[in-house]
């Protein structure tokens, strides 16, 4: 197939998709959320706290269904519960928030509460699937504005603590000796993760936040060793996987979140396989100046 015909087909596909407002909305919302998820997730992977991030999303499920019970928008229940959960984990010192068993127990309890709230609010049950697995095609303009605001707050807070956060993540013992407030940093960081999780759950659902928050950053860390290149690649991969996922879903009629999950897993495993190929040149790379 010639280059021209490929380009023409691509152009037709794009024009076709963007003829629908729900598709432009989906692209805008997914774009904002993917970039934020990739950047925040990069630090989540760096700190080895991905499971804590996963738990926060489940706590958010209880919050979202609870909010439905008292007539609030699910997003605010998500934000409230994940924030409270993140701050609590941070305050309970690093050692506890990194403990898989304790986190697993809280995670299961949160899902249980989510179920209880659904049980008492049966009209809300139809929305349960959207909460669990996301529903990016139902995003409206108001939600895009909210996600943009959430994303801005998240990235601004992350920028404010980034320098000591990296130091404390890489060398906690030395950072403590140099006067970095470890617990405060950990708490603020988990609050940032909570906001990112809340935004991410709007796109791919609470069960699949890993697809944007862990898959792309983990792949990026396999492919590059620099901080800024890693952050850019994590955000870029998340963006590409989200947009491509929506595109595939549009033409295949598969669920969007499935397509994103598939691309995320593919991206990660492809990156895992990549270093073996480039191991030799990596050793003789010139120094960064």
């Amino acid at each position, binding site marked *: 197939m010639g280059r021209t015909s490929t380009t023409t087909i691509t152009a037709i596909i794009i024009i076709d998709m963007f003829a629908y407002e729900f598709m432009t909305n989906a692209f805008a919302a997914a774009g904002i959320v993917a970039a934020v998820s990739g950047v925040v997730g990069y630090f989540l992977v760096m700190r080895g706290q991905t499971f804590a991030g996963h738990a926060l999303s489940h706590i958010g499920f209880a919050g979202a269904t609870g909010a439905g019970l008292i007539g609030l928008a699910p997003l605010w229940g998500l934000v409230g519960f994940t924030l409270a959960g993140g701050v609590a984990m941070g305050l309970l010192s690093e050692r506890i928030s990194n403990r898989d068993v304790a986190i697993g127990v809280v995670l299961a309890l949160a899902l249980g509460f989510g179920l209880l709230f659904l049980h008492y609010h049966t009209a809300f049950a139809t929305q349960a699937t959207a909460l669990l697995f996301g529903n990016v095609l139902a995003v409206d303009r108001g939600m895009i504005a909210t996600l943009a605001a959430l994303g801005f707050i998240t990235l601004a807070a992350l920028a404010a603590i980034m320098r000591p956060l990296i130091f404390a993540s890489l060398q906690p013992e030395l950072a403590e*000796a140099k006067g970095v407030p470890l617990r405060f940093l950990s708490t603020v960081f988990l609050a940032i993760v909570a906001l990112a999780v809340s935004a991410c759950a709007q796109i791919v659902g609470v069960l699949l936040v890993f697809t944007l928050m862990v898959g792309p950053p983990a792949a990026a860390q396999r492919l590059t060793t620099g901080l800024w290149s890693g952050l850019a690649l994590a955000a870029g991969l998340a963006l590409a996987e989200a947009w491509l996922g929506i595109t595939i879903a549009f033409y295949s009629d598969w669920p969007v979140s499935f397509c994103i999950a598939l691309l995320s897993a593919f991206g990660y495993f492809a990156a895992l396989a990549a270093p073996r190929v480039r191991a030799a040149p990596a050793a003789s790379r010139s120094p960064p100046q």
Partner: protein
Amino acid sequence: MSVIEFERATLRMAGRVVLAAASFAIEPGEFIGVLGPNGAGKTTLMRAILGLCPPSAGAVRVFGASPRRGDPAIGYLPQVRTVLPDLRVRGRDFIASSLDGERWGLPSHGAGDARAIDATLDLVGARDLARRALSDLSGGERQRLLLAQALIGQPKLLLLDEPLISLDARHQEVAIDVVRRVCRERGVTVLFSAHELNQLIGTLDRVLYLGNGQAVLGNVDEVITAPVLSRLYGADIDVVRAGGHIFVLSRGREVEHGAHQHDHDHGHHHH
């Protein structure tokens, strides 16, 4: 003025008394070998000097004042060195993270920082290592990067907690030599904890031997004796000198033999 002064200082770690009413003073430019059995409090002692573990009784003074966290005059190589297994951060970026790492905002490093990092990497011969990802380095290679990092910023006091662990014999010599040069040429005071006394004998000025809640500071000949060590170990200890080496024996076995292999037995996680 002494660089470090302990005045009847009692240190506790998780409620347990590690050092009971210990008094000693370390003078500027001294190279002090910190020795003692696992769990004797070598790490706790350094944390007290860093202001991370205030004495429950008595006083600790560093540069004539109470220790304060984040003193830029102190270079520190921690014993517990968390390295996340999947972390593909370049050695150089790892070191850079510690430069003004306590400041808020975005990380940014200027030409001055780059020069400081190059200079310290050259000192320990680790410039090539720093180009590789941390996860691709061996324990000993990481160790050399950390030693380089501890030397950045011209500290006046170096606290090196088991810097020889996981280094092979040649790099142990290199590490000791680098620290000795820094100590002599810049007049830096060094606390160097280790399991093996013999490698340090030609280098150290005095020994700070910890054990049984006590601390004894003095020359090798004063401290490494059967009566003193028997008191510190709470067991019958023999000291045998042969061919310029000193062997510390308990019931015919060397007490610290093979102790490096169990370096995780003490430090942060006391069981």
